[in-house]
Structures are given as C-alpha cells and as structure tokens.
C-alpha cells in the first residue's frame, strides 16, 4: 500500500504537537505572602500544590514573610513579582508615588477586631478608659486609632506581641485580634465566646479590606497575560480550597509543619472558614465576582489614612487598582 505524503506529514505534526506544547517554558515568578504558612494563604498554597499555576504557564515560588521583611517593598525592589498586602499599607506606598498596583482585592472584609473579657467589666468602647489596651503597630494600628477617635476615647495603649498570653492571663484588658487567628486562639485557650466582648471594626464603618495581590506597574504592562493567568489561577486556588476544605487543610498543615508553625488543624479550619467569609463578603460565593476592590472601600481606607496624616494625598483609584481578574 502506498502511503500518501500529506498523511505522513500530518502524523508527524500530531506526534510533535505535545512536545511543542510541553517544551514551552513556564514563566518563573516569585510571590510573597505577609506571614508564615497558614490558612490565610490557603488559596495560593492550593493553586501551587494542585498545579493551577503550572497549568497557567507559571512556575510560581511562594515565599512566606517572617514579619521582618515587607512583601510590598520586596515587590517594589523588583526582587519578586507579586505579593499580598493590606490595602492600607499599599495606599500609603502608592501615595508616596511608588508604582505599586492592586491587581486583585481578595479579602473584602476586615478581620481586625478588639476583644475584651466580660469579666473585665467592659461592655462598650467607653469602658476602655483606664483599661490596658494592646495594639500591634503599623497597618494594624490604623483602624484602632480611628475607632478610638470615633468613640472619642483615649485608652492606655501598649504595644502588642504576636502572642495573646498577656490578654489570657489578664495583664491586658483589650487586645487586638484577627478574627481568623487570635480570636480563635483565645477560644482555644478555653475562653468561651459568650465570655468575650468583641468590637469588629467593620461594624464601626471601618471596614478596611485586607489581603490583596500587588505587583509593580511594569509587571502588568509587560506581561498582562501572565498577570491575568496568575490571578485566575489564584482565584481558582481559592475556589478549590473552599470547596475542598479538608484536602486544603492537609496541604496547609503540611506547610505549617515544614515551617514549624505552632498551630493545629482545627485552628486552621477556623481560619479557612473565616477567610472564606472575608472573601465572599458582599461579593458572594461565585469566584467570578472575587477580586474586586470596591471604590467605597478604597476611599474609606484612603480617607482614614489622610485623616490620620499617614498620607497627604489620596492616590487615584484607577491608578491604584487594575481589575485584572475581570479584564
């Protein structure tokens, strides 16, 4: 039988196609999150571990900050491509004319809160007077300061460590806490929710959206497709994480153990749930709607920063935020 040449060529093409596709090099990027591995970063871990980044043609390296280095600064210094960061901090940087861009605002709701024990006699913020209140510094102090101003109180504020022991033993009356983290740690120290008084800043018109994804302007300009792929893969990672929580927790715990984090699975489960709440706040469960930075939120934060003289001008929303996910 005589085989026709075009057929042979077609066959060769079919054989070569996968090689061609596999041979396409993935783009290496580095991505830093603000803290050590925990469920707060579950979506990124999942996207990485489940190969979503790879599928998007990205060879992502996730870096975990130890608190001493600032991921946003790392991005600005061009050492890494992407990072997560709080909106407030990013606005402050942008306000300094730094080319930082928010390309995806994931957490819609602030998890920062103040917690007191009922036994301390605190019922309202007015009761903070003459009490010892502890706050973290930096971004974490903006909302409390705004809150105290709004409440017209001037409590005795002391610096807060990353541990809640001072609060647990009663040395501190009011402590700052992330709802997904410290608040649950208080519960896991044997204090019941009904023994606590909570002050969520979101309830006081101080909803500062927290984790968003940032990059330099040139990164987006140079490779918008890669940026889009990265954001899509990340959102897919989060969607998968919320749909497959136990599997996600397995991955998170693996990372936690590798980084010798003092944590446990039930705490990470709580955190994952709380992050889901923060991520779906006002935008719903559909991942299609995730990643939006609402203008009012942006201005809420920016105006408070201005109010606290942390910035002198409010950067333009359009300059600051690029909705990569929905482009």
């Amino acid at each position: 039988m005589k085989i026709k040449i075009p057929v042979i060529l077609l066959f060769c093409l079919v054989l070569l196609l996968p090689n061609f596709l596999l041979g396409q090099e993935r783009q290496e990027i580095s991505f830093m999150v603000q803290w050590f591995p925990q469920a707060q970063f579950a979506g990124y871990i999942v996207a990485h571990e489940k190969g979503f980044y790879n599928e998007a043609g990205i060879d992502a390296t996730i870096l975990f900050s130890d608190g001493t280095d600032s991921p946003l600064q790392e991005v600005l210094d061009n050492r890494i491509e992407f990072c997560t960061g709080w909106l407030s901090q990013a606005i402050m940087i942008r306000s300094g004319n730094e080319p930082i861009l928010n390309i995806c605002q994931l957490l819609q709701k602030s998890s920062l809160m103040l917690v007191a024990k009922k036994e301390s006699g605190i019922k309202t913020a007015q009761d903070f007077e003459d009490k010892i209140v502890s706050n973290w510094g930096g971004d974490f102090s903006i909302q409390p300061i705004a809150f105290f101003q709004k409440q017209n109180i001037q409590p005795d504020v002391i610096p807060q460590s990353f541990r809640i022991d001072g609060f647990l033993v009663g040395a501190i009356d009011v402590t700052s806490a992330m709802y997904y983290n410290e608040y649950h740690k208080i519960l896991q120290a044997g204090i019941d929710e009904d023994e606590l008084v909570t002050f969520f800043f979101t309830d006081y018109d101080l909803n500062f959206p927290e984790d968003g994804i940032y990059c330099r302007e040139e990164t987006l300009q140079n490779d918008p497709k890669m940026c889009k792929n990265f954001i899509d893969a990340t959102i897919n990672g989060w969607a998968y994480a919320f749909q497959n929580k136990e599997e996600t927790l397995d991955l998170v715990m693996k990372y936690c153990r590798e980084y010798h984090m003092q944590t446990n699975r039930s705490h990470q489960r709580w955190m994952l749930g709380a992050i889901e709440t923060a991520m779906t706040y006002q935008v719903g469960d559909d991942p299609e709607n995730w990643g939006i930075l609402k203008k009012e939120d942006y201005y809420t934060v920016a105006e408070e920063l201005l109010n606290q003289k942390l910035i002198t001008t409010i950067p333009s929303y359009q300059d600051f935020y690029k909705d990569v996910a929905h482009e």
Partner: protein
Amino acid sequence: MNEGKVKVKRPLARKLLLWIGLPLLLVYIIVILFTYFWSGDNALKQMKEYLFELTSHHACMLDGKFLKVSGASIGIADAIDKFSIPTKNELYSLMKKKLSENRNIYGMATAFDPFAYNNKIKLFSPYVHRTDKEIQEFDLAESYDYTLQDWFMIPKLLRTSYWGEPYFDEGGGNILMATYSQPMYKDGNFIGVSTADISLDDLELEMSNIRIMAGYTFIITRTGTFIYHPIKEYMMNEGIFSLAEEDEQPELRAIGKKMIAGEQGITTFRDVNTGEKSWLVYSPIPECHWSFAAVIPEKEIMKTVNSMVLRQVSIMVIGLLIIMLVILWASFGITKPIKRLLGFADKISKGDLDEKITGISGHDEIHELVKAFNKMTYDLKHYIADLTVATKEKESVESELRIARQIQESLLPRIFPPFPDAEEFDLYARNIPAKEVAGDFFDFFMLDDENIAVIIADVSGKGISAGLFMAVTRTLMKTVCVKDIPPAEAMKKANIVLCQDNDACMFTTLFLAIYNIKTGKMKWTNAGHDEPIIISEDGSYRILKTFKDIALGIDETCEYHEGEAQLEVGEVMVLYTDGVIEATSPEKELYGEERFIKILSKNADKTLVEILDVVTEDLDGFQKDNQFDDITILLLKREK
C-alpha cells in the same frame, strides 16, 4: 488384715460433704457473688482513689521542682530589692551560681526596664544558660527587644510573678522553654524582671519516665496547650481545647476548662487518638497554673479491676477447694478406720475372734473405738470360752437335774389305788410338776393296821436344793412317824432335825394327819400348810381349821399343836399345795380357793380319780402353759 469391702449406702464422706461442704459452698457462692459485684465497685473506687493519689503525687513533685526554679528568680529579685544593684559581673556570677545550684534551671536572665539599670543604657538583660559544655553568658538586649516579650511585659503589667507559655527562645536560649518571671522592684519602683527558664526537653525526659498503668500522661499550660504530650507533634501545637474542637467533643472542652481552672478531678472521655473510652485523671501544678493529667484506657482499668476481683475470687475458690479437700481427707480419715472396723465387725459376726485391728494410730475417738473393739473381741473370745464351759456345766447340771427330778418323782408313791383291798377308805394323789425341780411332795404309809399317816408338803424355793430338802424331809417324816406317836411330836422331831445345819435356811410347810381308817378319826398337825378342805358327797364342804404353826426348818424350838377331826363316811379330805390356788392364768388371774372348792363340790359324787381328772383338766384350762409351781393334790375318802 483384710476386712473385706463394705458397701455403704450413704457414705460418711458424702454426708460430711453434704452437711459441711454444701452449706459452705452455698455461703462461698454468695460471698463470691457478693465479692464479684461489690468488690467490682470497690475495686473501681480503689482504682479511682489510687489514680487520684498517684496523679496528685506527680503533680506535687512537679510543683516542687518548679517552686525551686521560681525560688532562684525570687532570690535574685529579693537581693536586688534589698541591696544595691549589682554590677554586670556580679549579676552574671550570681545567676551562674544559681544555675549551678539548680539543675532544673536551664537559663536565667535579669532583664531591666529601659534605663533602669543605668540611665545611659536603655536595655540591659544579662542572661546565662546551659550549653552542652558550660554555662554561657550574654546580654539579651543584643538579640532582641525583650521588653515586648511576654515574659517581661506580663509580670510588669500584672505586677506579679508569671509562668509563661512555652516558646522557642530564638536569640536567647534557642530551645523550647518556659520562663518564670519575677518582677523586680527598687524602692517600690518596677525595674525589671528576674527570670528562670526550664527546658521542655528536660521536662519531656522527666515526664517520659512517669508511667501510670498502661496509659500516658500530659501537661497542659494555663491556656490548655500541651507542654508535654507523648505525641510529640501535639506539644506546643495542640491543646485540650483544640482536640475537643477537632474531635467535636464539647465534654472535653468542659474538662479542659476545669483543668485550667486548677481543679482536680477524674472523669471519662473518648481519647482523641485511639477513639477509646478512657479515664482522665487530672491534678493542678499550682506553682505555674499548669495541669498534670493521666489518660488510661478504660479497658486497661477494667482489666486491672477485673484481675483484682478475679484474684479475690480465685483465692476464695482455692480456699473452698482446700476446705472441700480437707473435708474429704478428714472424712476419709474417719471412714477408713470405720470401714476397717466394719469389716472387722463383719468377721466377728462370722465368729472370727482371733483378729486384732492394728495400724490405726491417734488419740481420738476412733482410736478409742478400735481399742474398745479389740478389747471387745478379746473379752468376747474369753466370754465365749467361759460360756462354752458354763454351757457344758449347765448341760451337765440340767441332766443331773433331770435325773434328780426323776428320782424325786420316783420318791412319790406312784401306784394308785395304793390299797386296793382297803374298803374303809380310798386315797388318790397327783403331783403335776412344774418345769424345774420343785419341792412339793405327798406321802402316805400305814403306821399299823388301822392308822395311816398322810403327808402333804411344800418346800420353799425351787431347784436341786428344794428337791434335796424335800427328799430329806420325806425320809425324815417316814422315820419320825412311828406307831402311836402323836403327830405334833413327830412334827417337832422332824423340825429339830431339819433346823440343824440348815445353813441354806430352807424350810417347808407340811400337813401331817394320822387317820384311823376304822373310825374315821384323825389327828393332825400343821406346819404352816394350807388347811385341808373336807367335801361331803352332797357337795357341801368345810375347811379343816388348824393351828397354822411355823413351817419346818425355821425355829428349832417350835412346839407344834395337834388337833383332831372326824371324817364322816363319804367325806373326802382334800390336801393340796399352794400351786393349786395360786395357779395363774395368762391374764394374771389367780385360780383361787373359791374356784377350787366349787369344782370339788360340783364333782363330789364322783370317784377320786374322776375328781382329780376334772380338777387337773380345769387347772390346765385355766393356766394353759403357764404353770410356775408344782401342783399337788391328795384326796382321802372314807368309804365306810
């Protein structure tokens, strides 16, 4: 000796078992059941107490250790408060000294509040800690801002000592540690904290040596975090509340709250690791507000409890078996010689008296019985030998008695009518002897042609002696009754002879009449005999009234009276012995004089033989085979 097998329907061993073993068994079963159920509860209670005590003990030991650790810190704080603030070198050497004195302390710091040590130095915290080789020293301020550390800030805020949560002291001791902090004051002002660290590795090593049954132990801090747990992964990561949450056990959370509140307790819960129901015994370590706990799987506890109960029950069952064996052994001990005795008795019953039971020792009743048995056979043997002799003797005596009776009978006149030719009178007598030789006798003999002596007598007693006395009396009477002698004199003579040498005190009643066959007159004398009855042909009768003198052989000096009587033609004088009127029926009725006279009167017209026959027949019918005494009747009739 072979006693032969004796089959017993209800052996003693079985009886003993039944009467002692069975009630004992019942009591035992009740006690065992009671023990099982009661001691189960009791053992459980004991186990709880035991675990409670043990846990408290370990908690106390740990508390003591931590107290020594905190004591070192307090010492330094006190020294600084009381004396001037030491120099840097003094502080290092002071802390090193404390460290070398107390092996439980890993490191110590004296951390000053900013500018408190020196107004030119902001932070100063000399720190000493152990390494593998030596004690190292450095200033913590070079590593980090310690004022933000909980171990510094919390005691400062609380103004009281504080045992901190475990942490990894990066830049300090570089190990997992827990720190005790004692606030330091100078003139009432806070100037810093004095700390002492314990190494969690040391604690882990120490804890791993504590064994409580087949369970494990753990320590939680005041926040419920595992500071020690056999599952290494749990340490610092998990706490009792996180496990309660992970395992969805709100009860465990409630237990945890009690534990961190410094309570002591014992409870059950589902072990998160094994899923097994387990006991949780917890006790506080007050010094650092930690809680020590032991977890023991319930099945292990029940195993121990059951083995405790089983041990008790086993001891009781063994005890019961031993008692049963003792009963059996004792019963065999008793029945074995008894069986031998039975066999022995069997042999005795067959006449074998030559055997003797040997080999049964002891000083109990059985031994006494054996002795009695042996004595009995010995006695029996001799008794039988004696009896054989006695029987032979008796047989010979009896044969002699038989002969004696024959002789005695032969002594009595046997031929009737004795005087067939005599027309003037007729005489008949009959002696019905009892079984034994008795002493009745009668006699008659002519003294001359006209006078005939008629005698009837009854010797006291029975047997040979009576027979012999009768023979003597009879012969004597024949001798003394000579022609023309007054009967009283003859009687007197006979009495004197009989009284002489009468050592046996034999005596005899005797009636003697000397009857004139021609005239019908008679002279009589009576030595205590029954008075004769005189019957006419028409049936009328009279009793011959006599002097009833004393019987012969009693009183040598006795004078006998004499009387006379006239027997009319046709009249019959009836002489008899007391065997007639004292004849007794089987119903114990006496024959009596009245019945005797009645039958005599009724048959008075008959011949003497006929009268005797009728009377004999009547007596036989009356007493049947009941004759105890000789019956003797003598009839003398005047024909013309």
